C-alpha cells in the first residue's frame, strides 16, 4: 500500500516550484497540444505526477526536467488516443489573414503546419526551437538517441519548408 499523507515541507517546496515554473510549463504544454484548455490539463497531469514523485527526485534541479518529460510523454499519449488513425493533410487550407501582414501570415501558417506534424516531431520542434534545448538534452528528455533527434528535426523542417512553399503557391 502506498503512503498517503500530508507532508507540509514537500507541499511548500512544491508550491514554490509551481509558482515559479507553471507559467513556462503552461506555454510549452500549449505548443505541444495547441489548445489552452488542453494545455492546462496537461500541466495539471504533469504536476500531479511530479508531486507524487517529489521525494524521489534528486533535488529541485531534477524537478523541472521530470515535469517536462511527463508532459511531453503524456501529450504524445493523448495524441495517440484522441487522434489515432488521422494523418496530417498534405496541404493545409489557406486561412484568411486579418491584419494583412505577410510576416504575421507566414508565422500563422508555420504554426498551422507545426500542429499537423506527427507528435514526436512536434515535440522535438518545440523542445529544440522554443525551449532551445540542445540535441543531447532533447534526446534525454524524449528517451531517444541524438541521431533520432537530428533525423526527426530534419524531417520536420523539410515538411514545414515544403508545405510552406506549397501553401504559398496555392495562395497565388
Amino acid at each position, binding site marked *: 500500500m502506498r503512503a498517503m499523507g500530508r507532508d507540509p515541507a514537500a507541499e511548500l517546496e512544491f508550491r514554490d516550484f*509551481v509558482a515559479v515554473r507553471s507559467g513556462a510549463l503552461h506555454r510549452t504544454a500549449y505548443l505541444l497540444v495547441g489548445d489552452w484548455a488542453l494545455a492546462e490539463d496537461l500541466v495539471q497531469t504533469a504536476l500531479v505526477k511530479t508531486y507524487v514523485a517529489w521525494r524521489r527526485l534528486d533535488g529541485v534541479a531534477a524537478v523541472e526536467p521530470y515535469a517536462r518529460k511527463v508532459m511531453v510523454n503524456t501529450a504524445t499519449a493523448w495524441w495517440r*488516443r484522441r487522434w489515432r488513425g488521422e494523418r496530417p493533410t498534405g496541404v493545409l487550407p489557406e486561412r484568411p489573414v486579418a491584419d494583412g501582414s505577410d510576416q504575421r501570415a507566414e508565422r500563422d501558417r508555420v504554426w498551422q503546419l507545426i500542429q499537423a506534424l506527427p507528435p514526436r516531431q512536434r515535440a522535438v520542434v518545440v523542445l529544440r526551437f522554443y525551449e532551445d534545448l540542445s540535441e543531447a538534452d532533447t534526446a534525454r528528455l524524449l528517451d531517444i538517441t541524438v541521431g533520432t533527434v537530428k533525423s526527426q528535426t530534419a524531417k520536420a*523542417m523539410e515538411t514545414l519548408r515544403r508545405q510552406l512553399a506549397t501553401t504559398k503557391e496555392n495562395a497565388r
Partner: protein
Amino acid sequence: MIEDLVRESLHERVAQPPALDDPAGRAIAGARTLRRRRALVAACVIGVAAVLATGALTGLHGGPHMLPVPPASAPPSPSLAFIVNHSALRLPDGRSVSLPPSETALTDADQVREGWLVTGATADANTSSLWLVTPDAVLHPLAQGLVGAPAVSVDGLWLSWRTGTQLFTGHLIDSGALIVDASTPMPDKGFPIAVTSTVVVLGATATGGGIDSFDLWLPAKGHYVPSWDVITTVAAVYGPLPGGHSLLGLVRPAQGSKEVCLAELDPEASLRATRTACNLPLQVDPAGAVSPDGHWLAAVGNGGVALIDLTTVYDRPAVAATWGADWPGVWVDARTMVVPAADGLLGFSVGDATPQPVRVPGLPSNATTTPVPRHEPV
C-alpha cells in the same frame, strides 16, 4: 530561414497565456487521488481475527465509542504494521525498519505470511525496489527495477510485478526468497494491478490521471499477448474478493456510458460481469476495500466513503452508510476500518458513521501514518 520562422511562430503563439487556477493546490489534491488509486487496487484486506485477540489498535475493536487514546506507556501494538513518514516500517511490536539510503522513500507495504513486502522508490524516478522484512525485523532484498509496487493476491500467496519489459508472477518461500513462477515479455504499456492464483490483471493509464484500461495475462496459457481493446466496459477494479476467484469492480452498462455499476468480475472470462448492482453513488475510483469476511465494501462514493453490504446489494442496491473520509483505509476486523486522514488515523465501524481518533502507541501524533494491509490465506 525556416528555423527562424519556427522560433518566431512558437514564441508568438504563447506570448499571452491565460492564467492558471491554483495549479499547485489542484495538483496536490490530484496527487492524493492518484496515490489512493494506486494504493488500494489490491487492498482487499483479509483475516484479522488475531488483531482482535491481541488488541491490535488499542481499543479499536471495542466499538467506535470505546476508542480510548492509549497512555504514553502503552505497550506496542502487536498487530498491524504502519508506514511512518514515508520512510520507515513500524512493525506491530514497535520496532522500526528503514530501507537503505539508496532508496529515497518507502512507498508501499503489504503484510504476508512471511513478513512484510516493502516497496522502495529508487533514485531513478521510474523504478522501485522490492524488499521483505521478516518478523525478526531483518530486511532482505528481493528485486530491483520494478515498475511500481507488486500486486499481491488476497491470500498473500501470489505476487506479480513488472521490471522493464518483463512481467512476472511468483511467490515467497519460507526462507524469504522470491521464486519466479512464470514470466513473459511485456513490451507495451501496463503493470499488474491485481493477481490471483491463475490470472494477472493489468492496468494502464493513457492520461496519467488514473487507470483507464485493463488487460489480462493467464500464465497457464503462455506468453502475454496485449489485447487492451477487449475489455471495454470495466471502469475500475477494486481487487480480488476473499477466495480469490472473483474480482470486484465497476462496469459501465454500455461502452462509453457515464453510469457505473458495482460488479463481480470473472478474471478468467475477460472480466465479464457475473453480478451487477446499479444506481449506487460510487465514483470511478479503484480505491475500495472489502472486509475480511467479504461482507462489506468500503469504496469512494459521492461525499465520502460508501459502505456497501455485499450480501444484499445485488438484490437491493443501496449504500448502508457514508463515512466522512476521502478514501477507504484498511479493515482491522470484519466491521472496523482504520483510515489515514489529514489529522491522523480515524476508526470507522459498521453501524456507526461517527469516526473516532486512533493512536498508535509510540508514534507522535503528527507522524504521517499509513496502515499496512494484511493478506492471509482464508
